């Protein structure tokens, strides 16, 4: 169990309550389940890493429990009760300094839980109908919340009474009617204070708390259907959004133009995540597939069928493809290298042109050596 979970580089939560781990390099998916029999109220709604070393996952379910899953052991280690099902499902889960837990339910209450007590240490009311809560990757105590008719609010957990920044709704339209707003997902842009949100009215807004303007600094539109998921690229200039029809697009935040669309999804997108170092984006949704697209040429790299509807996903920071094969592959290649080194030392050296093998992956290391061998055999 432990070795299976160590191979997985992508973790997904499904509606049936099963935590799925996918090893992209081996194209295998593993199911990890807490209880022996499945039930719908274990439906996974939020996933996050419990620590920066990514050895433990926090899984938030519909019935209000947060379970800890250890990737080393491959099993659920503990369960905590963090709220009632009456509060609504989890819309955000995060950790504070690796000891405290942040949860947010649909009813709007954001709670900070300490490890020992079963009562929340701090409570915050973010309004009603909150759709998402996200934590800033830079400042751990800053969070953003937003929902239906509940604009973007940025809170500082040390001062829980008032939000640090409340966004104002857009100006009334040309008929002087109030514009409805529905924040579905948001992300903090690195290297600045700005926050980008996507709405149920197919708009993408960028807010800048440092500027006096409380209305969005940038407004962009995509498609005709509500945007349900959002993910920022590592460079901070491009954002990937997905809507309920399964259309995923990359938008440039400097001007608000669509840079390209990713094809393949048939159902609504539930969660998107860009890999922190590689230019790939993983998407999951209601059509029960995990898809990994490359961002440079917008091609589908991997597609995995997972039998239940998927709610959320989490990518490990290590390389997607290497992740699983790393430990085993290195052992094998080292042995192979030693044997081959002896062979090379025994043979006479012949100068060859254009021999600069890229030493990125284990596989690529083997290939030039193999091709060298072949050529030599031909000459001999």
């Amino acid at each position: 169990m432990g070795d299976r979970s160590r191979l997985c580089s992508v973790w997904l939560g499904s509606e049936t309550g099963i935590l799925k781990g996918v090893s992209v390099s081996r194209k295998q998916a593993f199911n990890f389940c807490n209880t022996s029999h499945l039930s719908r109220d274990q439906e996974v709604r939020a996933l996050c890493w419990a620590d920066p070393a990514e050895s433990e996952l926090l899984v938030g379910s519909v019935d209000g429990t947060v379970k800890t899953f250890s990737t080393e052991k491959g099993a659920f280690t503990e369960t905590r009760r963090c709220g009632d099902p009456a509060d609504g499902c989890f819309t955000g889960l995060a950790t504070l300094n690796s000891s405290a837990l942040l949860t947010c339910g649909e009813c709007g209450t954001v709670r900070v839980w300490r490890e020992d007590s079963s009562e929340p240490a701090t409570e915050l009311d973010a309004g009603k109908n909150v759709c998402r809560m996200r934590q800033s990757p830079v400042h751990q105590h800053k969070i953003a919340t937003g929902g239906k008719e509940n604009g973007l609010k940025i809170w500082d957990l040390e001062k829980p009474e008032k939000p640090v920044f409340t966004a104002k709704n857009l100006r009334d339209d040309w008929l002087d009617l109030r514009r409805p707003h529905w924040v579905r997902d948001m992300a903090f842009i690195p290297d600045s204070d700005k926050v980008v949100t996507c709405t149920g009215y197919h708009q993408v807004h960028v807010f800048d708390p440092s500027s006096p303007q409380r209305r969005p600094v940038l407004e962009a539109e995509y498609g005709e259907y509500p945007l349900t998921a959002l993910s920022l690229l590592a460079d901070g200039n491009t954002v990937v959004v997905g809507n309920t029809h399964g259309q995923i697009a990359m938008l440039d935040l400097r001007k608000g133009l669509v840079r390209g669309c990713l094809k393949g999804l048939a159902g609504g997108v539930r969660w998107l995540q860009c890999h922190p170092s590689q230019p790939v984006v993983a998407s999951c949704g209601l059509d029960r597939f995990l898809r990994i697209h490359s961002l440079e040429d917008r091609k589908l790299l991997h597609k995995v069928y997972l039998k239940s509807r998927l709610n959320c996903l989490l990518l490990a920071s290590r390389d997607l493809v290497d992740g699983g094969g790393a430990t085993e592959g290195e052992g094998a290649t080292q042995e192979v290298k030693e044997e081959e080194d002896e062979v090379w030392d025994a043979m006479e050296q012949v100068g060859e042109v254009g021999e600069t093998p890229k030493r990125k992956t284990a596989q690529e290391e083997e290939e030039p050596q193999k091709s060298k061998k072949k050529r030599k055999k031909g000459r001999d």
Partner: protein
Amino acid sequence: MDITEVPVSQDNKGKKKKNKKPKKKIVKEEGNGEGSGVEKKEVEKMEKSEAAAAFPPTFSVSEIKNKQRRHLMFMKLKQEKRMQKMQLKKKKKKEREALGDKAPPKEVPKTIENQRVYDETTVDPEDEEVTFDEGTDEFSAYFNGLTNPKVLITTSDRPRGRTVRFCEQLATVIPNAHVYYRRGLALKRVIPQCVSRNFTYLMVINEDRKVPNGMVLCHLPDGPTAHFKISSVRLRKEIKRRGKDPTEHCPEVILNNFTTRLGHSVGRLFAALFPQDPQFVGRQVATFHNQRDFIFFRFHRYIFKNEKKVGIQELGPRFTLKLRSLQKGTFDSKFGEYEWVLKRHEMDACRRKFHL
């Protein structure tokens, strides 16, 4: 006459036959007074010799500009091909008879269904996760026997004769179905009222140019909404050799060929339209047959003549459906989340890939 004929025929038949040109000219000029018979023979000879030599690969029948000659050449080509095919068949048959029992098995012809690209979402009957998923989805109340289906059939606003008759016939086929006039009401407002009156299904037949062309099937408490395209509707009076009108007995339901996960969902959607206890006394059966992503609906009455032979009479309307989208939740085309949407450019690109 002669001089004009020669260049025409030669241009048509051979860009490579230039070497023959001077010879033909001389011949034609000599045979000036011999009449058209000689010319025709020469033309035929030319045709034959050129036909024999014309099968080098770069010459094709479509290069001949004269329609009559081109047609003749094409017919010849076809006849040649057919003859070759028949000869091949005869040879194979002889060999097969000669070998007798040891003959290799007959080759199965390739059809699109044979060549279907394997769909990884095909449901494995022993898969626990899928069985759990299906067992607890929105239809579980029906399949566990807790609710009985009650269907509301309506149309788009101001329906015309054909659609109205189609709805009436559908209401006779589906037990416990009620037809209501739409009166321009918004579906999102109709749905809560249906739920409060214990309806389990809302079926809206959309009409375009006096002909039904779409169907929205919404499972009521909070169930999925499917949008289909209807084509090829035949009302009762248009069906030849049909039986008498269907009776009030609950029909049996046959669902054919719904193999993938999406197919299963759609199949369950149809199954939940009919009550769970069919009355075999009525000997009526409704069939939903899926082939190549088209769902064919037929309604028959059957009678067993003896143990092996069955006679069937088609009653009732017949129509074809094609799934366009499956949306989670009740009808909300703008803000609802779609579980599956038909995207023609992406999904219909491969002829051998089907989704249901």
